[in-house]
């Protein structure tokens, strides 16, 4: 059964800007895209091992919503976690939902 951790109010999320949350001791990056959809990925940038993905710039490439790591700028698909610049690399995805205006991320 999924355990859900409270992140923040949905309205507190700035569109196209991530936040980081602590979920069972792990750092998770949560993004709200311009169309209102939420995405959650591991906050750890696999290329630098720094916990920073939530601080990257959100945008799109060929229509896919992306975040660019702020360290070396590789872009990741927000929906799948796959690195678009190096398809062998991916970051973990987390389930995310809104309940009564509150954003929650599911742990393993």
């Amino acid at each position, binding site marked *: 059964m999924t355990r859900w951790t409270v992140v923040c109010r949905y309205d507190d999320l700035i569109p196209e800007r991530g936040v980081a949350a602590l979920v069972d001791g792990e750092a998770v990056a949560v993004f709200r895209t311009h169309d209102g959809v939420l995405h959650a990925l591991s906050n750890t940038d696999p290329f630098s091992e*720094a*916990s920073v993905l939530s601080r990257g710039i959100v*945008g799109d490439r060929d229509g896919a919503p992306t975040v660019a790591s702020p360290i070396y700028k590789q872009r990741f698909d927000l929906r799948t976690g796959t690195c678009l610049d190096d398809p062998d690399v991916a970051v973990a995805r987390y389930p995310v939902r809104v309940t009564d205006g509150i954003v929650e991320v599911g742990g393993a």
Partner: protein
Amino acid sequence: MRTLVIAGHGMVGHRLVEALVERDTQQQWRIVVLAEEQRHAYDRVALSSYVDSWDADTLTLPSVDDDRVELRLGDPCVAIDRDARTVRTAAGDVVAYDALVLATGSAPFVPPVPGHGLPGCHVYRAPEDLDAIREAAQHAMHTTAAGRRSGVVVGGGLLGLEAAHALRQLGLSPHVVEMAPRLMPVQVDEGGGALLRRFVEQLGVTVHCGAATDAIETDRGRLLVRLSGGTELDTDLVVFSAGIRPRDQLARDAGLRVGDRGGVHVDARCRTADEHVWAVGECAAVDGRCYGLVAPGYAMAEVVADRLAGGQATFPGADTSTKLKLLGVDVASFGDAHGQTDGALEVVHNDPVTGRYAKLVVSDDARTLLGGVLVGDASAYGSLRALVGTELPDDPGALISPSGAELDAATLPDAAQVCSCYAVTAGALGQAITDGAEDVPALKSCTKAGTGCGSCVPTLKKVLAAHGVAQSTALCEHFEHSRAELFEIVSATGIGTFTELIERYGQGRGCDICKPAVASILASLGGGHILDGEQAALQDTNDHFLANLQRNGTYSVIPRVPGGEITPDKLMVIGEVAKEYGLYTKITGGQRIDMFGARVEQLPVIWRRLVDAGFESGHAYGKALRTVKSCVGTDWCRYGVQDSVTMAIKLELRYRGLRSPHKLKSGVSGCARECAEARSKDFGVIATETGWNLYVGGNGGFSPRHAELLVSDVDTDMLVRYIDRFLMFYVRTADRLQRTAAWIEAMEGGLEHLREVVVDDSLGIADDLEAAMAGHVAGYTDEWNAVLDDEDKLARFTSFVNAPDAPDPNIEFVDRRGQQVPVGYDRGSQPVMLAGPELEVVTR
């Protein structure tokens, strides 16, 4: 295979190698080049720019990489045996030839006045000559009192004025002695010469026209130059530039005919009477006439290459048009400048107030343009020269009156010659464009236009535009515009958000390329705090947290220390803050102090302390002004001539917070010793005895480049205005992540065009640029201070939204030389990124 021996590896000899390698598709020729000089062929025309860098490599011409070519540097040809068809080299080698081309250039003419060989007398032809002049000028710095240091240039032609300019850059007061009654007698007429003289004198050059040099004597460790008429000039050195003499000795010794005034006599094929011996460039006298310019030499090289490859080319006679900017003054002369054609009429426009002199020489019916002289403003040169020999589209007077019709590249007749170096007509360019040439580089490679002296490049651009050819300068997949175009759009429409801009002018949702670029444009145009509203989501993480992201996800903090000057009290505050938060401290390369290892949630508390102590953001995180470095200047330094610290602080405070396409750095040195390294900066200021020299376009980093002189000896007020204009012009027109060095390099017309815009206000935008800068200065507020006053913005400074007080467990430090550094500091970075995100990621 047959052997071509070329004696001489100057500009023209080298062009011959290039041209033959290209035309000799049958691989019939091997080429042996015998070169007297030790260096690879270089751009002698640009010799004076050696004074900017003292790096001769910047002059080197591109080498020809081909197995057929053997280059023997430092081994000149000393004799020709025409019967045996061999040449002998200084090293004693004998080389057999099937064809021999003499390309030995010319030597400066030194008039045989008494004392011409004294130490301190120089010529101006090769980098070595400039090295010797520089050494003499440096010697004068130590031995002659400031204000009395001077140099005398004998000869007031093109080269003499260039030499005078170089002396001025070396800190000497130049005198120019010219026998003729005016400067540049070959190119300009009396009216133009008078105006030119006024300009040159305003720049601190003393001109002695109609004077002969009678003698040079030594006098108390210096030199004394005696002129006809009794004038005596005390000086530290003398430079002769009284003309050139073709180096035709090899031909004379071999019994070949020389011209009446010297030069290897050749026919229109550039061949001597000996069918195996040819001559090109300054050493050649084509049908008896020598040419002291490179374009005719290049044409001769092309003729010989064509002939050797089996063609029938002949030398068409050459255009001796010239356009130059001497000491900041435009001078151009083209075609029959002196009106020597029968019945020629002259149309003159002379305005001493605005400093413009223009003369057109036209045929007796006033319909055909024959030539002209322009002084003060030569912007019409390109189009006028192209019209020589053709029927004028307009009344000649209208073409040169200041309000006159701008010549339109679209109306150039097909026969008009646009590039005289390669005889390329407007018609040929139009054909190339129809065949698919889309930009200047493409036109250069298919027609060769623009690859000689380069003076036609601005016209090439106009011709492209006249044919409606636009180039892709798209920023990224979301915008088809360049950064400069987006800047204009935002500025003209007043659009204030990224969303509106992309909806109206782009597609998709943006990315890490266009978002920060637009953020920077909005900030440059005074869009409010960079973290206001939607703008916050556009910023790179550095700008978002107003600090520099480090490898382990922590940040570094750099407060501004204007000019590098800091009080002990402020130093102590930095020490206390760093100690309290366990920050690693280091003195940066920019004369300030960096504190590393702060977590996001610590940034506001750290900055509260710093702001309370009077610090403000140093913008080390932004594409913005970084530092204005300074040396100690007159306050302390025994050599200082101006107060460099006050100037550096003034400039740093003026331009702080200015958002730009890339970071901006500056420096101010208090004298020519240049301890602040100003010439490695985007804009550098060096004190002179009477004011300031402004250098622009310097760069350290990945491709170092020395800044080049934009204006000299200006007062503080003018200095600041020129910098205002320069910076705002850069902010408006540069590409994303293009430092000023790359921006100037990519600019059509380069530094000269920049100078026209910034100094001469050729685009009429100087007032606008200054007003924009005034707006920036008035609107400046400290970004950090503004964040500390704003609860909403402060709320974003947390590691975790759902645990605001929890530090990131991922961040760990270890001790190194008594300070903390990230765990894994010894791992090195994984993918290596050089010079920012525009370069690709290289994984080991």
